[in-house]
C-alpha cells in the first residue's frame, strides 16, 4: 500500500519520456488507428466502441476508488444518466449535445443524495450501502409508468446527430466509425481528467485519506468533503457514460441500465487493472471485454459472463494491486 503511494506521487514528477508514457502513447495510437485496422468489419468496431465506453465507466469509478472506497452502486448513476438523457431528448426534443451533459448533472445530484447517506460509512459497510442504494432509482423508474414507461423501457431513442463541419459531413447515426470516434474522444478527455486528478493535490489528498484517514485529517485534509467531491465527480462521468450508452444502443429498460452488471463491470475492471493506477482500469476494459466478446461469447452463449467473476476472484486473491499496478511495481 505504502509502495503505490510513493510510486504515484513520484509519478507526477517524472517529466521525461518514461516507458509508461511510451506504452500509453503506442496504445492510444493503436486505438486511433483501429477503424483502419478493422476495416470492413463492423462487429470488431462495435465491440471496441463498447469496450471504450466500459473503459470510461472504469475510469470514472476509479476517481472514487482512489480514496480507497469500493462502490457497488455505480449502476444507479449509469442508469439515471441513461434515463435522464433519453427522456430529455425524447420528450423535450433537446439536442444530445445538451442532454448528455445534463444527464451528467442529474447523476451528480443522485450522487449527492447517495453521498449524504453513505459517506459516513467506511469499507465493507460503504460497499453494502451503495449496493442497496441502486434499488431506489430502479424501483422508482420501474413504477413511474407515465414518464418512463416502466419495465417496458424506452425504444427508438435518438442516435448521435450528424455534424456538418465545413466540407465534412459526419454521420454518427449510421457510421460505426463515427460513433467509435465519438466514444474515443470522450475516452481521451476522461483519461486526461483522471490523469490530472491523480497527479493533482486532490489526488494526493485522496491517497492520503485512503492510507490513513485520521492522520490525513490531522494535516488539514477535509476527508469527508473530499470523499464526497470525488464521489460527485465519479457520478458525473458515470452519468455521461450512461447517456452515451443510451444513445449508442438506442434502447434502455430499468433492469438493463440499473442492473448489477453496470455496477460490477467498472469495479471488476478497476480491480483487475489496478485500482490506484491511472490507465490500469481502462486497459483491463480494453482487454477483458473483447476477450469476452470474441472468444467466450461464441463458445458459451449463455453464461459467458462467468469470465468476469473468474478474473475478479483471481485478481483479489493473487494480484491485489491489479495487473498493471503489479507490472509497474516490478519494472520500476
Amino acid at each position, binding site marked *: 500500500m505504502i509502495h503505490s503511494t510513493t510510486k504515484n506521487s513520484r509519478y507526477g514528477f517524472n517529466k521525461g519520456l518514461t516507458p509508461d508514457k511510451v506504452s500509453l502513447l503506442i496504445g492510444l495510437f493503436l486505438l486511433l488507428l483501429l477503424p483502419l485496422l478493422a476495416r470492413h468489419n463492423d462487429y470488431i468496431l462495435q465491440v471496441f466502441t463498447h469496450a471504450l465506453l466500459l473503459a470510461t465507466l472504469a475510469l470514472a469509478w476509479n476517481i472514487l476508488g482512489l480514496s480507497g472506497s469500493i462502490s457497488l452502486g455505480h449502476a444507479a448513476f449509469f442508469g439515471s444518466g441513461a434515463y435522464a438523457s433519453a427522456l430529455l431528448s425524447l420528450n423535450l426534443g433537446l439536442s444530445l449535445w445538451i442532454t448528455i451533459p445534463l444527464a451528467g448533472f442529474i447523476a451528480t445530484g443522485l450522487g449527492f443524495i447517495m453521498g449524504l447517506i453513505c459517506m459516513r460509512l467506511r469499507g465493507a459497510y460503504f460497499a453494502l450501502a451503495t449496493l442497496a442504494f441502486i434499488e431506489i432509482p430502479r424501483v422508482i423508474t420501474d413504477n413511474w409508468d407515465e414518464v418512463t414507461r416502466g419495465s417496458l423501457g424506452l425504444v427508438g431513442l435518438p442516435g448521435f446527430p450528424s455534424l456538418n463541419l465545413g466540407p465534412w459531413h459526419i454521420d454518427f447515426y449510421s457510421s460505426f466509425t463515427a460513433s467509435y470516434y465519438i466514444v474515443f474522444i470522450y475516452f481521451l478527455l476522461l483519461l486526461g481528467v483522471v490523469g490530472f486528478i491523480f497527479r493533482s493535490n486532490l489526488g494526493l489528498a485522496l491517497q492520503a485519506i485512503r492510507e490513513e484517514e485520521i492522520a490525513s485529517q490531522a494535516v488539514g485534509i477535509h476527508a469527508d468533503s473530499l470523499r464526497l467531491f470525488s464521489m460527485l465527480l465519479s457520478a458525473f462521468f458515470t452519468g455521461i457514460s450512461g447517456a452515451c450508452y443510451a444513445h449508442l444502443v438506442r434502447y434502455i429498460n430499468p433492469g438493463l441500465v440499473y442492473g448489477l452488471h453496470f455496477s460490477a463491470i467498472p469495479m471488476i475492471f478497476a*480491480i483487475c487493472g489496478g485500482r490506484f493506477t491511472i490507465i490500469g482500469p481502462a486497459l483491463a476494459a480494453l482487454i477483458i471485454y473483447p476477450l469476452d466478446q470474441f472468444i467466450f461469447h461464441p463458445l458459451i452463449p449463455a453464461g459467458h459472463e462467468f469470465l468476469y467473476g473468474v478474473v475478479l476472484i483471481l485478481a483479489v486473491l493473487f494480484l491485489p494491486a491489479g495487473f498493471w499496478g503489479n507490472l509497474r511495481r516490478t519494472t520500476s
Partner: protein
Amino acid sequence: MWTTVLVSGISMGSFYILIALGFALIFGVTRYFNLAHGELVVLAGYVAYWLWKVYALSFVLTFPVAILVLFLICLGIKRLFSRLSEPLELNSIVLSFGMAIVIQNSMLFLFSGHYRLIRIPSLNKGFQFHGIYMSYSQFTLLLLSLIVIFLLYILMYRTYLGKALRATIQDKEAAALSGINVTIMGTFAFCLGAVLIGLAGPLYGCTHYLYPSTGHEVTLLAITITIFAGVGRLSGIILAGWILGLAESFTVILCGSSWREMVTAVLLLILLTFKPYGILGNEER
C-alpha cells in the same frame, strides 16, 4: 384483510429468518461477508427443482441432496475465503461478488434463464383456523422455519459446541486464547451454513420463481436482517425477519407489489444511517 396480511407477513418473515441464519452464522464466526449467499440459496432451489422435475423425486427427498451439494460448494468457498488478505471484510465482499457472478452464470448455463417453480398442488390449498385463512405453503414455511430455529437454538445454547461457536462470535482472540480452535469453528460455521442454505433453497423454489439473477434480492435480505439483529443474537434475527416480512406484506397491500423490492434496500440504508459502523457498534471500524 389485515389478518391475511399479518399471516402472510409472519410466514414470509419466518422464511426470511431461515434464509438469513446461514449468512449471519458464517459472518458472525468468520467475519466474511458472503455476497454469494443468495446465489447459493437459488442454486439449492435449482438442484431441488431439477431432481423433482427430471427424476420425479419426492419433494421431501430433495432436501438431503441439496444439503449435500451445498456442503461441498461451501467447503470450496471456505478455502477461497481463507486465502484472502486484509482488510478481510471488504476483500470478502469483492471476492464473494466474483463468486456470485460465477454461480449466477453457471446457473444460466446449466438451467437456462426461464422462470421455474416447484409446483406442489397440495400446498396451494388452505385451511381455516379460528376464522384465519392460511394456505398450506404458508403453514409449511412457518412450521419448518420455526423447527429449524428451535433446533439451532438448542445447538447454540445447550451444547458445548454452541458455546464455543458463540465464544468465537463474541471475541475471536479471546476464544482462541481459551483453547477454542477458531479455524475449525469457521469450517463448522460454513458446514452449518450449508445445511441452512440447503433447507432454505428448495423451500424458496416452491414459493418463489427461480431464475439465475434473483439471488441478489435474497442476499440483500440476508444482509439487512443480519445488520439489524447484530452478531450472535438469535432473538434479534427472529425479530428482524418478522419485521421485514410484515413490512413487505404491508407495502404490497398499500402501494402495490412492484414496490416490494425497495423495502429491503430502504430498511438497510436506514439501518446503516443509524448504525454507521455496522454491527460491531461504534467502538471499532
